[in-house]
């Protein structure tokens, strides 16, 4: 019976652990520092997105424009910095956060002020942002990024059998953003208000929650995260390509929902969102290491998503037990 108290995060962690054990036994390379570092390095951008997106989902909204917004931020920041002669890390991050937040606030404004459903607004801004990007860039990529952005910043460097195992800067940025998001959501009154608003907007409004502020924070925070993620992605691939991030929104949305957030609002956590991203990444990583044919990738990923979501919903599939549990507690 205790197992049912694990919650979505616990179930996800168990599934990832299970997969990890299987992969450690079946491949030589899964359980190596290098592979685990690579997983974190490669997923840090997606995890930053996920940490931002979970806030919007908890507040009962949805946003599909964030990946494109990140591309816009990349372009605007790079163009501005190159025009002033290069800039530096501090300036780059501050500018990315500011522009990302603005793009997010624009969504919030449309949703709150004009009372449009969030999915419609963000479908519109998704097209608007990408369209503007294409018009102004003509689809031209920026290959000459400033030097500070070009060179990878290693945090931990360990020797490995082939090459080295290195943890890079984006992982630290991801950790800071996740901790900050988690802190606001679980340790502040404002965070509780976001959950409350997501569960029941009307009840929250009547009890004096400032709805406009909740919207502004949720979408603004996601925008800020997207800005930072965009900068980190440009840092990792060392160039800015206009269509590099478009299409990332749905896998990340799937990962966050897998991590326990619901499209109805009021549920979800940063831990869950990160674990959701990690699960999909471990599956992909495992398929590559096992040498499974790429023609079967999508099929297996789809199957794992279904299996994971079913496992984490098991307690809801057993209504009597769940009720009995609640009665007891």
């Amino acid at each position: 019976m205790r197992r049912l108290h694990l919650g979505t995060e616990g179930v996800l962690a168990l599934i990832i652990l299970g997969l990890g054990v299987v992969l450690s036994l079946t491949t030589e390379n899964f359980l190596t520092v290098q592979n685990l570092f690579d997983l974190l390095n490669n997923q840090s951008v997606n995890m930053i997105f996920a940490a931002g997106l979970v806030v919007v989902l908890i507040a009962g909204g949805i946003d599909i424009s964030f990946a494109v917004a990140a591309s816009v931020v990349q372009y605007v920041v790079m163009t501005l910095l190159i025009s002033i002669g290069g800039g530096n890390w501090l300036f780059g991050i501050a500018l990315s956060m500011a522009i990302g937040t603005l793009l997010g606030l624009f969504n919030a404004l449309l949703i709150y002020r004009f009372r449009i459903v969030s999915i419609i607004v963000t479908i519109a801004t998704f097209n608007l942002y990408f369209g503007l990007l294409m018009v102004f860039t003509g689809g031209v990529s920026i290959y000459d990024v400033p030097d500070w952005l070009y060179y990878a910043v290693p945090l931990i460097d360990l020797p490995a059998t082939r090459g080295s195992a290195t943890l890079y800067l984006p992982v630290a940025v991801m950790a800071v953003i996740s901790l900050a998001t988690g802190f606001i959501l679980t340790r502040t009154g404002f965070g509780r208000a976001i959950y409350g608003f997501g569960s029941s907007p009307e009840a929250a409004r009547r009890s004096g929650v400032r709805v406009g502020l909740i919207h502004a924070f949720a979408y603004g925070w996601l925008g800020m995260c997207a800005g930072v993620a965009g900068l980190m992605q440009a840092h990792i691939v060392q160039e800015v390509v206009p269509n590099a991030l478009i299409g990332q929104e749905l896998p990340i949305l799937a990962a966050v929902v897998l991590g326990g957030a619901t499209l109805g609002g009021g549920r979800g956590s940063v831990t869950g969102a990160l674990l959701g991203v990690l699960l999909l990444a471990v599956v992909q990583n495992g398929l590559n290491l096992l040498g499974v044919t790429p023609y079967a990738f999508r099929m297996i990923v789809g199957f794992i998503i279904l299996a994971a979501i079913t496992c984490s919903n098991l307690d809801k599939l057993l209504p009597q037990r769940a009720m009995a549990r609640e009665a007891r507690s």
Partner: protein
Amino acid sequence: MKRSILIVAALAATFGATAHAQDKPTVAVVAKVGGIPWFNAMEQGIKDEGEALGIDAYMIGPTSADPALQVRAIEDLIARGVDVIGVVPNDRQVLEPVLKKARDQGIIVLTHESPESENVDYDFEMISAQQLGEEHAKLLADTTGCEGSYAVYVGGLSVPAHNAWADAAVNWLSEHCPEMRQAADRFGVAESVDDSRNTTLDLIRAHSDLAGIMSFGSQGTIGAARAVKERGMAGEIKVMGLFSPGQGRRLVHEGVITGGFQWNPLEAGKAFVALGNRLYEGGEIADGDDLPVLGTIELDGHTIFASKPLALNEETIDELADLGL
């Protein structure tokens, strides 16, 4: 005084030129879209060859990649009475009627990158899909000595052109390097630097004998090279494929990208003019002919296959990148 002499001289030159143009053709080429590096280079080739042959040759670049704009441009050219119309079609089907109209008026019609076009005198291809794949395979075989395993990236598992190139390369390798193994089936990651980079990191780890990566999709070559560089294995794992010279320049010089092949739009521009001129002068084209610009060709129906791969490597990359390609 001086100025008037100049004007007279200029006028004389102009009239002189038009008088000469009576027995020389006018060649006009309609690009897919104007103002992008690829077609800027093609325009350069058209002008260069026009000057070399002393004929009037120019390119028209529509403002967007819209077949309707190409139709209008071709109609204008028919009205203007040019002798040769060349076109790189945005949409073969849409252009068929207007090309038929041009041919009915005795205008010579040439296409490029469109072997399926029907209402043409000839279509020419700088390199066949078969050869493009095989050139990469040969490069891989040469640089790895046929040892170890290799991986193949394509833009998508269902992109026809990419998979045709990949098929040709894999077939060549299984025939000529039977001991070389393909590490896994081909991966559809070559349109994304992120995906190809992540996949490459995994493959390096999973296959200790990985010797080379061929990417038939321009972002895949860059992503694979970044991963190989990150692992400090530049030169040990050979990375090759299609890529845009400007994007890959730094990596080629660092020795991370071994090389690659594509075709040269500048040469294609020259070929339009040279081929048009030859046909205008009544020249016939047969299989195995040695044509100006295109060299020895294979004729398949009305499609001319030249064998002009453009090698991207340490020596050629800067020049091509400077062209903006």
